[in-house]
């Protein structure tokens, strides 16, 4: 085998290894019970949960007590309910959010979200909603 081909082979190897390692690191969109299980098996691993806000339960944000803590209840895509703690200030219009993606991990009795990706409600029902992220 020529050295040139060997190098190409090595490069291809690096490429495949990169992609495999990246996909190995990705997470799935999960439900709250899965998130709970993953947190027990693998503490600190972040997961994504597609969540719908429970508008019937209180949304607690008191900036003067803790500006970095928002508490609310949400349903995952399978309609399991869970308490969620978000470690950033409350996004405005949060009460009107329809759907959001929580990024974080389960912690004891609540889901600890470090990031929320949300699709904001629109003024017009079919106007495509702009997506904003709170990073």
């Amino acid at each position: 085998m020529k050295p040139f081909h060997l190098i190409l082979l090595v490069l291809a190897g690096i490429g495949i290894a990169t992609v495999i390692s990246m996909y190995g690191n990705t997470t799935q969109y999960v439900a709250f019970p899965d998130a709970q299980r993953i947190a027990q098996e693998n503490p600190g691993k972040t997961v994504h949960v597609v969540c719908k806000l429970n508008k019937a339960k209180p949304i607690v944000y008191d900036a003067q007590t803790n500006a970095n803590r928002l508490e609310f209840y949400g349903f995952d895509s399978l309609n399991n309910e869970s308490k969620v703690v978000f470690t950033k200030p409350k996004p405005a219009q949060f009460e009107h959010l329809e759907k959001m993606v929580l990024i974080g991990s389960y912690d004891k009795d609540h889901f600890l979200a470090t990031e929320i990706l949300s699709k904001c409600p629109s003024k017009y029902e079919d106007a495509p909603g702009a997506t904003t992220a709170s990073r």
Partner: protein
Amino acid sequence: MKPVEAPIVFNGEWLWLGNLGHVFVILSFIASILSAIFYFQHEKNQLSAGLIWGKRFFQIHAAAIVAVFVVLFSIIFFHRYEFHYAWRHSSNSLPVYYMISCFWEGQEGSFLLWLFWNALIGLVLQRTAKTWESPVMVVVAFAQIALGSMLLGFHWGELKIGSSPFDLLREQRPDFLNIPILGQLGVGNYLQVFKDGNGLNALLQNYWMVIHPPTLFLGFATAIVPFAYSIAALWRNNDRGWIAHALIWGLVCVGILGLGIIMGGFWAYEALSFGGYWAWDPVENASLMPWLIMASAAHMLIITKATGRHLFTSHLLTQLAFWLVLYATFLTRSGILGEASVHSFTDLGLSGQLLLFLLAFLALGLVVVLQGGKRRIALYVIAAVLLVPMLLAYSIHTPETVETFYQWLKGLGTLLFLGWLVYYVYALYQRTKVEMDEEKLDSREFWMFLGSMFLILSLVQVFAATSIPVFNKLFGYKTAVPSAADYNRVQLWLAMPIMLLMSLGYWFKFRGTEWSAIKKPMIQLGIGVVVLTVLLMFGFDIKEFKFVLFLSLSIALVLANTVYGYQKKKFEWLRWGGNIAHVGFGVLLMGVLVSSVNKNILSASKEGIDLAPEVDQKGNQDAKGIKFNRENQLLYKGKPQPIQQYTALYIDERKGTGVDSIDKYFKVAFIKKDDQGKTVDSFVLEPKTQNNAKMGLLAEPSTRHFIYKDVFTHVNYESSLDRKEPFSNFRIDTVGFFRPFITQTGKVVMTIDSINRSKDSNGLRIQLSIKAKRLGDSVWLRPEFLINEQTGSFDMLPAESNRFGIMAAILNLEIIDPNPATQNIRFVIQTGEKTPVWDYIVIQVIEFPWINLVWAGTIIMVIGFVLAVLNRINKQKQLTS
């Protein structure tokens, strides 16, 4: 017999303007088809008149595109909301310089911009392509046909081709004609209701958004030229003359695209609140992918031009670069990214058409690569493969047919597509392989090739990660989009070999190098890099091994290219292009490293009253809580708060200009004192919020730029967003000047101090200055009373102080003596009380050290590209003359 319903007459519409625009769209479309046909005939059948007619029709096409542009702009400029595009993307209050941004908020406008750049590029090619004009212009005109079809807006039964920017509001939104108020006004007068538009996305109302998208689009558009030359060369029996042309345009593309990408980063940094300039957002990646591959392709073209090697790779990469532009368009315009991105997208139901666009260009490649009988078979297969989804895609109107189409696409389509791609690459290889002996390990082409391949590796990771939403859709996976950290982890290591090769490459000579000739400078450079690394790792405070390694490689990149340029080229600046571009890239990456590794969230301090520690059951502080939970701090108005080395003071806020402005600016002072208490540094930042009903709280950061760092702050929450406690304990007093009166509970004592009268078109405005005192503290309240002298009606504007928990309103005036000079007036004042609250803001403060290196590196890089392009053009001229 049923009575014939009289057609509704719609009043006040400028239908002629839309019709005019539509005529120009159709004219440009037909002209591009004719241009392509004539150019094709000239190339294929040596039709001598073909060239001149191809030229003319393309010029007509270009003029028509400009006309469409002007018409669409007029519709926005004159606020003609009978047109959906103007209503959807603009509003009366939009300043003229942002009207241009309306073009890239909507999909039709974006296609129009792309058409415009392509038309301009076509005109440049007519002057510069010389003997290559006709085959290259066939490809450009073909692209214009495909893009132009996106604007046609033909509805023919179930068939929908394109989406016209001149569609009417009442046709797009027939529901609007049913709103109750039109029952009284008459449906024909609907324009009297729709007097204002929906408005431009607030995030786009930024000056960087006026110049960043067109720059990026120009970068995207230029990618077609190297592609067109590659196709033309294959068409002309594998002619080698295309390389010099493709290289120039490839360099132009990399330079402009690179500039456009970083401009976008700068916009994100200045206007968005995620705290950075790059977030590995799918849309950012969509622009990075063509850049990576075009940079790689340009280097391959340099190799092929100098040595004749790697012709296949040059062809493949230049074509891939254009395909990736199309793929990026598909990603960002089809709505497939959905929640994966912070950018907003519209889906006009053109996904099928976009996919066809992509496939059509792949087909073009296959047709020119194959010869004779094979070409004919390929044509039939392609026609069949394209026609079936075309019929399906164009008949999409119901969700069921969309589902059927995607089902079909998932199974057979994906397989067919992959097979097609593999076969194409194989055929291209057979056609363009070069039989030469093994290249030497000490040749420049070898190291450049290696570097290009590492760029491709970087691309592979970005592609695989960004395409996850596509794979999810295709195969029903549920994989979450990778985080920025996932990208950084991989890209950090891929950037290192790229930097190493960029430092070394130039020192090798094409076809082989005398090791002895470069041994000495290599050793000297090595020593220089080590010394500088040691100095800078302390200067920049970089400690971790991998980051030190990265830093040393970026230093090597800057040093090696500067030294090489000086040794070999002295002051012949035109020849410095490549080296300068490399130096710029090195400076850029150094800036990226330092500003992100040592990015310091100043507000993440453990002090301050808002930082209640999270304590677990055993009473230990929760480490996770501390790590995540402390990035924002609360500042009470007027109360200084230490934020690391600074003392931050929330001074005041002001409303944006304009009556119905929803902008709020918060004045925050930052003061830094030395040990003796002397102020060494102080500055005021004014972060902005916009409480947008549609998009939530948009925070626009405010940044203090130093040479060696930036201090960046934005408001994430403010007290007016809290649920308001209503006032109670109302009490009414009738008082004159200087006579103290108290609130219901007696906690606050007030005195009317002075009066201010003014007259404007609305009538007489009376403003009182009331001094309110509580526990030795005092505040001014300025309630107003408005009297409309014509109607005799009046209005009141109460004043309130959250800090004192009081409000005061003027209910009426009792004028005892009509002579205003005596000030003998008494006022009926209502006061109310609630729990006093301090106004506050919740802010995040971030320090970015040496972020200026990122911007400086970009500028240096662009200068390098300009020089490289000029140098190549010069060489080409010398060659032909």
